[in-house]
């Protein structure tokens, strides 16, 4: 999923007729006087990082006037919020808030869900723990769609009454339309603020768009995708794999760095999880996890091997995919052999174990034999044996 930054999210909401506070993005506190005077004197300063729970981390602060705003901007810029360096801040007009509500759209196994609560402005995770009854959920019927009467019912169940119920139903329906149109995976409005004159505002907004749907949104192509694991900034190598994934056609690759020393080239889900578990159970420490669907071309796969071979603390590599059924084994091995040559890897110092079976395996074995020392396991060797071998070889490096 690609998380859009709050300013981009709010621009999208504004385009769809949703009321959001006016705001300006800055990268330093210079020139802040003019901005604050045009919006203020009360403004809110928000760190633009792709993470939730910012309030508690001090990344959202109210400022009373220019000098206060400058002080806050200077303290937030360059600091780290949930593992992300703050490079930009959003200065917004402070809406005079009377009530704070909450609404969100997300997906469950049966389709989209709409959440609503009158407890806005706080971490929803905490509300969920302490007052689960305060969050009302509607499961969308994807045949008939999300209807306004369902919006009314949803908010009514949270306890809202009167004309606000009508306003909220229209506001929520417009959010739903936006969510559909931008192929959102998660859209959270927290707080959904009611101002002193009763108007509704999307004061806090977070949007994850479905990266599988980028083909419908060429305008998102410039939106930076977080190539990291989601709890820190991506490393150079993670970024490079992410870029290769976007730029090259066919298949999909993801690469996440971890603390260990055994490089892993696994298909990711399913067997990939099992291999990772086994590696730890046998005393090994993975240097990374991968999530790979090979395509017809080896180029994307080479990008992953390149990342593994250039990671500073990696000592060995296990290429272990389950019985290939839809792609060719020789494509995987071709990518491996190419990357070994590019990075002058010598298997004497850097053990490589390969367990790749399936279509094209004969050719894959011929390709692998060009690199002395690759341990291409005999056809049918089970996964446990492959994992045991790499742990053992790594311990002797």
């Amino acid at each position: 999923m690609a998380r859009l930054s709050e300013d981009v999210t709010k621009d999208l909401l504004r385009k769809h007729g949703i009321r959001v506070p006016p705001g300006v993005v800055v990268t330093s506190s210079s020139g802040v006087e003019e901005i604050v005077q045009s919006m203020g004197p009360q403004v809110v300063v928000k760190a633009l990082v792709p993470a939730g729970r910012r309030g508690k981390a001090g990344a959202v602060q109210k400022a009373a006037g220019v000098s206060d705003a400058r002080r806050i901007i200077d303290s937030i810029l360059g600091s780290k919020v949930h593992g992300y360096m703050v490079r930009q801040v959003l200065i917004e007009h402070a809406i005079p808030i009377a009530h704070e509500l909450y609404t969100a759209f997300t997906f469950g196994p049966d389709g989209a869900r709409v959440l609503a609560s009158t407890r806005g402005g706080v971490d929803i995770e905490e509300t969920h723990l302490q007052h689960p009854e305060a969050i009302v959920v509607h499961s969308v019927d994807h045949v008939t769609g999300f209807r306004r009467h369902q919006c009314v019912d949803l908010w009514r169940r949270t306890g809202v009454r009167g004309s606000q119920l009508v306003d909220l139903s229209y506001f929520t329906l417009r959010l739903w339309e936006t969510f559909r149109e931008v192929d959102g995976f998660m859209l959270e409005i927290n707080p959904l603020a009611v101002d002193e004159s009763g108007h509704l505002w999307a004061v806090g907004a977070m949007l994850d768009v479905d990266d599988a749907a980028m083909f419908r949104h060429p305008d998102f192509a410039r939106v930076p995708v977080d190539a990291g694991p989601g709890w820190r900034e991506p490393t150079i190598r993670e970024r490079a794999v992410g870029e290769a994934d976007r730029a090259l056609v066919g298949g999909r690759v993801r690469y996440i760095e971890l603390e260990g020393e055994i490089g892993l080239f696994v298909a990711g889900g399913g067997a990939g999880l099992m291999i990772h578990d086994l590696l730890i159970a046998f005393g090994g420490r993975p240097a990374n996890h991968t999530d790979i669907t090979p395509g017809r071309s080896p180029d994307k796969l080479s990008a992953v091997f390149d990342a593994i071979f250039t990671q500073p603390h990696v000592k060995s590599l296990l290429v272990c995919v389950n019985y290939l059924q839809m792609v060719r084994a020789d494509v995987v091995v071709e990518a491996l052999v190419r990357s070994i040559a590019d990075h002058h890897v010598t298997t004497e110092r850097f053990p490589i174990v390969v367990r790749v079976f399936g279509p094209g395996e004969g050719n894959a074995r011929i390709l692998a034999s060009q690199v002395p020392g690759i341990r291409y396991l005999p056809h049918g060797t089970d996964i446990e044996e492959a994992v045991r071998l790499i742990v053992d070889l790594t311990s002797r490096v």
Partner: protein
Amino acid sequence: MDVPCMRAYGTRVVAGVTPGKGGQQVFGVPVYDTVREALAQHHVTASVVYVPASAVREAVFEAVEARIPLILVPTEGVPHHDAADFVAAARAAGVRIIGPNCNGLISPGECKLGGIGGDAPEEIYAPGSIGIISRSGGMSAEIAVTLKNAGYGVSTCVSIGGDLIIGTSPVECLRLFAADSQTQAVVYFGEPGTRAEQALADYLERARYPKPVAALISGDFQEAYPQGTSFGHASAMIQENNDTARAKRRVLQQAGALIVDRMSGIPKLLSGSLDPSCGRA
């Protein structure tokens, strides 16, 4: 590459549909412009949708609206809004979707749908009486090989798909296996994320499930990382404490499933709960 493999395995591929290519023949199979046209000429019981993610939505809707009873969707990277829409439409139409993001369906010795088993299905899947349900297509193959090496065969194996939104849930598969006289035991492979295993456990208890169910759940390592991280399949994102591999094992065990830690434990466990003459290929 799937079509020749399917035909070689005994699947009767009667028609192909590609708009604009009507009237042609591919691998000796007649091609039509629309599903409707193909249905007018042939008796069709299932469809495999080989369409990339950017166009899969319309293709699945075409198959659903034509009321094809079984629609397999191997396509990976299907947008969530599209999957939710076509899965709901299929339910309303009373037809079954398997997938998206799945490897296929195989009844060893009879036929297969999709890429499952690749070009050498007999090497991986031996005929027998164990049912397999797996989120991961690759793991279904690994489990089948482990069973085969221990002398067991497979009645039917369903790769249900690794996405959050899929057409046929593990519970629905278990229900089908309960009614299937060829199946004497079921092996389930699961991952962290989603509440599928809770639903599975509830069903096992409620139905007093008549056949042994062995469950292997991977992804313990994910607990070491922050919630909300997905390392593999989109569905494998831990969002709540009871989404973890460990919690899933616990609820399944309480519901009477046989829990295995490693794949090599599956045949051992089955041999203890099956009639010794059963399940052998």
